[in-house]
């Protein structure tokens, strides 16, 4: 059946930043299909230039209130690699533990508050709280735990002030870690309920083969450091990230697009799951089974299911790290001082939305000379468009409303953080 369709979703809701979906089909033929990004480009690179490297992680952690730990970690790893700073075992354990805290916080927010409303046929988490309060209360409970875990190590909620080049300026006590361990164990029940909830949701069925890119490590499910690995085969040292990202400007988006060997690739929880499935915690693998998720999964809507799998993994691994820290005890350590010699380095992490790169050049005076930062959402944009081009012809006959919802859900599935757009309050006195 020939179909005409014109969709123009101005500002997709429940995603970060301003993205417009534009679809135009005539007589069943797709003429236009794009995700327009209309945010103002940000200028972090310029903000970092000329600033002491010790400030870089604090500045970049403000890029995002959700990925503050992720940006701080990538930033610190870039400086540490540039300056040849080695980390102690204890620092590694604490860095990993706070990372799990942020992974939980972000995934719970996305899965419960941004994606779940679609399946309950409500517009946002607020009406969802009206019809399923236990679901939202559970999400808030889990978010509190995750936030407290980040604050215990990072020194405060949202933006981690205690993380510094070479270590931490403030350390948690063993007693605090013991309490956190108990709380994580008690949260297993909520985690099980989370898997049960998401396994019951009718995920849209749409598959498109693409390339998945994630960090990987020989001995663990990689979140910090590793080798850039793709499901098309091949791996790269993080220093060679530009061979993977190949950033290019496109006319309809103020964010750059990236492509490796195909027209696009995907990063994020599903990419990590596809690349590193074998290294998931056994309980996370069980959750994947329950959710019907097997590598290589080519349904982008399942990115949220992969996040649920990572929620299970993060809680279990965080408990393991707490055990290790309790057994070792916490030792006071002094982060190394600047030795008066600059250098260049790349830091890379798997933040909740996918692989993130920070690349700094630091002068002998300890100031940042050059900085480059490539965020995960930028890397996903070309892939989202390729999905849209494949999906629309399959569902064109369902009509405007259903196609629009399917596309909005698709964009949301990628958990895009298009920008931390201008968001001050508007106040009207009554």
């Amino acid at each position, binding site marked *: 059946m020939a179909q005409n369709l014109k969709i123009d979703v101005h*500002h997709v*809701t*429940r995603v*970060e930043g*301003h993205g417009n979906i534009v679809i135009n089909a005539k007589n069943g033929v797709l003429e236009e299909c794009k995700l327009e990004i209309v945010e*103002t480009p*940000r*200028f*972090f690179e310029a*903000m970092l230039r000329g600033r002491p490297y010790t400030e870089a992680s604090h*500045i970049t952690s*403000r*890029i*995002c*209130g*959700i990925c*503050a730990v992720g940006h701080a970690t990538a930033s610190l790893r870039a400086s540490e690699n540039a300056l040849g700073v080695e980390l102690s075992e204890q620092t590694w354990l604490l860095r990993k533990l706070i990372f799990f805290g942020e992974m939980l*916080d972000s995934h719970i*927010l996305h899965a419960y*508050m*941004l994606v779940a409303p679609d399946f309950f046929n409500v*517009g*946002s*988490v*607020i*009406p969802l*709280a*009206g019809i399923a*309060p236990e679901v*939202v*209360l559970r999400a*808030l409970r889990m*978010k*509190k735990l995750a*936030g407290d875990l980040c604050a215990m190590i990072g020194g*405060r*909620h*949202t*933006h981690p002030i205690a993380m510094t080049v070479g270590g931490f300026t403030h350390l948690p006590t063993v007693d605090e870690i013991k309490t956190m361990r108990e709380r994580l164990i008690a949260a297993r029940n909520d985690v099980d309920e989370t898997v049960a909830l998401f396994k019951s949701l009718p995920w849209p069925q749409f598959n498109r083969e693409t390339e998945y890119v994630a960090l990987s490590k020989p001995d663990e499910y990689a979140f910090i450091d590793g080798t850039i690995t793709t499901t098309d085969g091949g791996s790269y040292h993080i220093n060679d990230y530009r061979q993977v990202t190949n950033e290019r400007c496109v006319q309809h988006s103020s964010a750059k697009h990236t492509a490796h060997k195909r027209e696009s690739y995907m990063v994020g929880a599903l990419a990590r799951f596809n690349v590193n499935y074998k290294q998931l915690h056994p309980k996370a693998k069980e959750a994947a089974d329950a959710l019907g998720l097997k590598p290589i999964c080519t349904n982008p809507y399942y990115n949220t299911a992969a996040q649920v799998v990572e929620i299970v993994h993060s809680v279990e691994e965080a408990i393991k790290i707490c055990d290790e820290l309790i057994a070792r005890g916490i030792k006071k350590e002094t982060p190394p001082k600047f030795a008066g010699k600059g250098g260049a380095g790349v830091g890379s992490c798997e933040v909740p939305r996918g692989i993130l790169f920070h690349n700094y050049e630091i002068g002998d005076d300890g100031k940042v000379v050059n900085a480059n930062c490539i965020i995960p959402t930028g890397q996903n944009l070309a892939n989202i468009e390729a999905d849209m081009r494949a999906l629309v012809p399959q569902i064109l006959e369902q009509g405007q409303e259903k196609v629009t919802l399917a596309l909005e859900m698709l964009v949301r599935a990628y958990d895009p*953080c298009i920008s*931390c*757009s*201008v*968001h*001050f*309050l*508007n*106040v*009207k*006195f*009554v």
Partner: protein
Amino acid sequence: MKRTLILGLGNPLQGDDGVGCYIAETLQRQMLSDDVEVIDGGTPGIGLLNLFEGRQCVIIIDAAEMGLPAGEYRRFEPHEVVLTGSNQRFSLHRTGVIDALALARELNIALPKIVFFGVQPQSVEWRDGLSPRVQAAVPRVIEAILYEMEGSQSEKV
């Protein structure tokens, strides 16, 4: 748990949007009553609700579009105003304040007394630091906050 929370919100990388964080940082260096905690909350989104738990009073300092000259500030409580996000949609970031309050209502979560100090920004473009007019307003806003706390302290007695 300290009974009064002073919470600065905003993104210091977005010019005057960071005024709340700037004021929180300044207040952290001052001697305040033992019962007061000051947090530079950044852009916490809906997680805000968890920071309210167990408090008696929360003072939120934030940039607010009020149609006033830049640097003017107003004290208001949630029932006195209509709050909307700058783009009127559910988002993870600052509309967090609005969503957190709406969510608390929907879930019947008891909230502490909430007082806003809204500061009219001049510019929220991506840049570091406050504009001169908002910078100049900072001591006045701090004075007003300290006065507010004196009031709430004497309420307790």
